């Protein structure tokens, strides 16, 4: 049984309109990192939203640990939401600009970890941000007052605090400098190895996806055009589109 499985998902936003996703099937095994590549408009983010329950497919099914998302009870759904966490492209857009970063981090704990007292929350938050290489005093600032790389690490901290089984990273480094990108990716790899977290890693950067993921789904115009093991990307890619995407990097190897 896969950890997460999407079967023949189609998403049409307006009745009679064009399909953002057409018959998309993907699966994610426990501990696996799966990459989804494709250019803007290919349906990557729509798929990410459906996988995490932020949006519903027009037809098709999503199941989590063998159970259909639509059949989960209220409590089970809350547990699912806690277990599946997102990291988005623009960290600041997902944080209240008037909250201190401490409050940004504390809020999900107040909602999801009722068992923790104020002091326990504080020590958990401080431990987590220190582990991500941030200093504690940064927590008194707001999202606008820190750099993009720092804000992205706060977003990662927020996601780790709930100890999710699945992290959906949607273009989580594309707005950052190369050096900061590398830091964030190294951090995510360490999380993977320490905690065994599964990843759905969405990016238009096929080189990065090859490096980070075990398997790759290539999307074009709302369909999956190719699925392959990331180790075989450069040698066994069949579809013309995948070859177009790797064209440049392929020449450099």
């Amino acid at each position: 049984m896969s950890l997460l499985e999407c079967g023949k998902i189609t998403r049409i936003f307006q009745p009679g309109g064009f399909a953002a996703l057409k018959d998309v099937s993907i699966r994610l095994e426990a501990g696996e990192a799966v990459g989804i590549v494709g250019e803007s408009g290919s349906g990557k983010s729509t798929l990410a939203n459906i996988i995490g329950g932020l949006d519903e497919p027009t037809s098709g099914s999503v199941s989590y640990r063998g159970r259909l998302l639509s059949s989960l009870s209220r409590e089970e759904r809350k547990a699912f939401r806690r277990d599946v966490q997102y990291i988005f492209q623009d960290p600041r857009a997902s944080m209240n600009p008037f909250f201190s970063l401490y409050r940004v981090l504390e809020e999900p704990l107040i909602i999801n970890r009722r068992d923790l007292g104020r002091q326990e929350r504080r020590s958990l938050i401080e431990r987590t941000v220190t582990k991500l290489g941030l200093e504690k005093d940064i927590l008194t600032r707001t999202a606008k007052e820190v750099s993009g790389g720092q804000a992205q690490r706060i977003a990662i901290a927020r996601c780790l605090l709930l100890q999710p089984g699945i992290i959906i990273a949607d273009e989580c480094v594309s707005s950052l400098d190369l050096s900061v990108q590398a830091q964030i990716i190294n951090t995510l790899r360490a999380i993977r190895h320490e905690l065994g977290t599964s990843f759905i890693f969405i990016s238009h950067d096929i080189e990065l996806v090859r490096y980070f993921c075990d398997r790759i789904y290539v999307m074009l115009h709302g369909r999956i055009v190719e699925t392959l093991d990331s180790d075989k990307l450069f040698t066994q890619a069949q579809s013309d589109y995948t070859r177009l995407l790797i064209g440049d990097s392929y020449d450099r190897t």
Partner: protein
Amino acid sequence: MSELLTIDSLSVRDERHIILSGFSLKVARGEKVALVGESGSGKTMSLRSLLHILPSDVEITSGSITFNGTDVLGCSARERRERLYSRIGFVAQNTTESLHPLMKVSTQLCDAYRQRHKAGRKEAAARARELLVSTGMKDADRVLSSRAGQLSGGMRQRVNIASAMMDDIDLLIADEPTSALDAHVRRQIEQLYARLSDTKQFAMLVISHDLSFVRSLADRVYVMYAGKLVEEGLCEEIFSSPAHPYTRALISLGNIVRKNKDEDLDCLGDYVRPVSRDNASCAFAGRCRESRDECARAVSYRRLSETHFVRCNL
């Protein structure tokens, strides 16, 4: 080569931080110059100083900028319009925001040109069409009658480039022209810049952190860190014998294709920290793998060759 743009010892600051400190840069007529460095190093602020579009809490404290013989910092708004804005084309980083999504592309391309040159509708439209075609836009007529919001990211880039060339420019400035694009659109736009650089007479000043792009395009490269230049030189000097550890680090980043999955990616650690007091020691020392005691001493901008300069004691 005769000089087109000279920025001389420019210092810029806001209330708390030094943004540029003694920053100097030259562009000769027809020359392709690149300015590289991470976010926070001051690349965009140097452009904004030149174009007189600094945020209101930021001020220029010393230095001069000369463009085509005009003193840019001292001239009147009218002179700035006539001698600066009509001779410089600017492609902003965010091409979505720099076009009105609901206005027709033809209007956005033609309006300013018609006013400035007292040109008729037909003349302006013909020029816009010709420039769009020169950017490799297929179906230029359909694009001209579309609204900008209906275009894809790559098409908006081309419209922006065409728009920057509407006037008879001496200098095209592009701020991170490829960073927000998908891999293969990025390749097309890179090729377009390379083609423009071969076919057009104007000079280019390109800001980018994409070094493979810079390498393919630029005659000369400036590398900046925390508001100061750390190295400048001819493109081949910078890429084949980089003298500053920061330049070497930037070049080594992004070789992800050759990375095995069991090794970490190279990174510099930390990020560019804003500087609040002018300091003659090396600002990069805290992140530099090669730093030694002498890095805390004053660093001068040394000359390595006629064209190659570096700010490093090692």
